[in-house]
């Protein structure tokens, strides 16, 4: 590694004034912002800066001369120069066309190209803006109208299409940031989170729901109301239904894009009265065939 004196091109006996003069001369020639296209200039400039940071400070120079710190001991953290930002969106207001405005006036190919590029820049499309929206499960199946409040206070009406899936992104054309000039506005991208519903479980396009039934409904059959995302539906319980019996409600699942819908499956769950009904206990105690029936026979053990 070169010594900081070599980097600046001065003698180790140079005065503070000479060191500053030498550094300024180098820096004027090498500053990255004065050499936007020269990668090598940055490296050399950094070395010169580091050298000057060391030698320009009497205390650090003394310690360096005394061997207390080495040449890199004073190196500054990685700096980002203006040129790193200069062609980004953030620096746009600073940019000037003055350097080539005259080239745009002719009717040659270059002028046409430059004008076209400026046109494109002036009529840039607006940026897309992202939002997140939480939707209850029932509304994700049945569809809904939601209203989002935007950071600037405006409102955005969002139509939730029926059958929406968790994590799906809705695109509202033209509802994003405005474009520049004649540029079209960007889109609003709304990522939808479906909030779980304790009653329903979705599997693909089908919906599963568990419905408690009484013993008499299970034994004798009857009509019950089963919940679906679009409201309760009357379902016939066949005689002698068991816990775990599944009934299919055709077309009551999630709507499928392009037509049709999944099914809803109702799983019955027989629930005995609580506390136990004495009459039922008395009946079961005297029910000899019930006691003889073992549902576990034949099952793998």
């Amino acid at each position, binding site marked *: 590694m070169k010594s900081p004196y070599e980097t600046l091109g001065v003698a180790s006996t140079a005065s503070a004034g000479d060191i500053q003069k030498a*550094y*300024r001369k180098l*820096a*004027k020639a090498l*500053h990255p*912002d*004065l050499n*936007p*296209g020269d990668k090598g200039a940055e490296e050399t400039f950094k070395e010169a800066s580091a050298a*000057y940071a060391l030698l320009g400070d009497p205390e650090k120079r003394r310690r360096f001369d005394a061997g207390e710190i080495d040449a890199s001991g004073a190196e500054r953290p990685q*700096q*980002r*120069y*203006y*040129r*790193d*930002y*200069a*062609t*980004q*969106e*953030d*620096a746009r*207001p*600073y*940019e*000037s*066309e*003055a*350097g*080539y405005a005259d080239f745009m006036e002719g009717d040659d190919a*270059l002028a046409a*190209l*430059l004008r*076209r*590029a400026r046109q*494109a*820049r002036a009529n840039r499309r607006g*940026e897309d803006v992202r939002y997140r929206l939480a939707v209850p499960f029932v509304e994700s199946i049945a569809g809904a109208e939601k209203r989002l409040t935007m950071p600037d206070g405006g409102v955005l009406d969002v139509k939730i299409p029926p059958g929406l899936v968790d994590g799906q992104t809705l695109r509202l054309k033209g509802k994003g940031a405005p474009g520049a000039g004649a540029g079209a506005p960007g889109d609003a991208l709304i990522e939808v989170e479906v909030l779980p519903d304790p009653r329903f479980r979705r599997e693909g396009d089908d919906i599963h729901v568990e419905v408690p039934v009484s013993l008499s409904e299970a034994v004798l059959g009857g009509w019950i109301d089963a919940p679906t995302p679009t409201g309760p539906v009357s379902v016939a319980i066949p005689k002698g239904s068991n816990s775990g019996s599944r009934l299919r409600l055709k077309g009551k699942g999630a709507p499928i894009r392009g037509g049709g819908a999944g099914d809803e499956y109702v799983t019955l769950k027989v629930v005995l009265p609580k506390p136990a009904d004495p009459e039922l206990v008395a009946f079961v105690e005297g029910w000899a065939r019930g006691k003889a029936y073992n549902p576990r026979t034949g099952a793998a053990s």
Partner: protein
Amino acid sequence: MTSGTMTRQEFLLRCGARGETLELWLAQSWIAPREPDGFSEADLARARLIGELTRDLGVNEAGIDVILHLIDQVHGLRRALGELRAAP
């Protein structure tokens, strides 16, 4: 979205300039934040450059004005050149 913005106070802290210095820069339009209290990283890098030109290179006010004007032209040209290169 462009990178986040910082307040005037954060900005001063990070570029190491004093309030009245920043006022001068703003009055000269050397620094032009999008919002009065919303400075970008580009504004900060630009402020650092102005600071270096003044402090380390000994450029005076008129010199800064000329340099920034030229730098802005160079970057305008670089963008135009970049766009021409990207054009079919």
